[in-house]
């Protein structure tokens, strides 16, 4: 498993990709080991791993199936769901 070992306690998190992000990430689900960080920082890590995620101005991110503050810190075992924003009608 590829991780981001920069020191500090490592957290195992599950990332769930939705809609076209499955194609961008090459997987529906990805398990990562990262340092404790905020949801918005984690999103930057994901964009580095999968540059096509940068095609969207922003993403909608839920923590353990709930939306909340992107400054919230992730914990070991969390599931992070990443959705593309959509504008069409």
């Amino acid at each position: 498993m590829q991780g981001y070992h920069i020191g500090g306690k490592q957290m195992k998190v599950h990332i769930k990709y939705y809609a076209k992000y499955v194609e961008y990430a090459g997987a529906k689900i990805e398990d990562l080991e990262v340092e404790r960080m905020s949801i918005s920082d984690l999103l930057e890590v994901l964009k580095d791993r999968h540059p096509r995620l940068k095609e969207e101005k922003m993403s909608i991110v839920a923590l353990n199936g709930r939306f909340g503050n992107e400054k919230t810190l992730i914990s070991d075992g969390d599931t992070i769901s990443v959705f593309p924003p959509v504008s069409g009608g």
Partner: protein
Amino acid sequence: MDFDRYLSQVAVPEVFPSGQKAIKSSSVVVVGVGGTGSTMAEMMVRMGVGRITIVDDDIVESSNLNRQAMYRESDIGLKKVDVAKSELLKINSDVEVEALDERLTIYNAEDIISYGKLTLDGTDNYSARGAINESSFRLKKPWVFTAVEGTFGYAKAIIPGKTSCLSCFGYPQKGEGVSCTIQGVIPSAVRAVSSLAITLAMKILLGKEESGDLIYLDVWKPMLETLPIPRNDDCTVCGRKGAD
């Protein structure tokens, strides 16, 4: 009211005759009568809403015909609101239909939203939704958010003072986004998301929607997920840390 035409829906315990009266006494505004908007407008009128205001400044194009309700080949080049108004009145002459040949912006959003008790989002860009969100919060009026692309889409009820708003969870508040014609969307996704949105609209009108969950639907997989969005105290529109 010709009650017979609504028999099948009032037979559903969730609606019942009292619910039909609530629908009949309601007024809705449909902003944008493209894919989702034309479908939602048609459904509201078939279900017997009292008054509907449709808002759009586009004309019917051939690229609309695969997924948009009511429009036909012979309508190409005509104003969408004119065609839609005439079709809606043919479907249900009891309904009062008002057509506004306008594009919703931050400048006219409050005036437009004031036409109804509830707003249905049939827009195709972030800025218009941001304007509906802010104006609805100021006027304390509920609205239903929809968005579609490819094979998937979202729907969410937004009830000021009760649920989270569109700005509570990281949905972009500005910008044009990419149109359906360029980004691509399958007609069944448009209809499915519209159906979810109309169900939310009914629940709001009957006082039975409280959650404001985000509904994610992918018709291709197929997959439906409901994700709670709590109110965000730091939200720049409805946050309780600002002026509520």
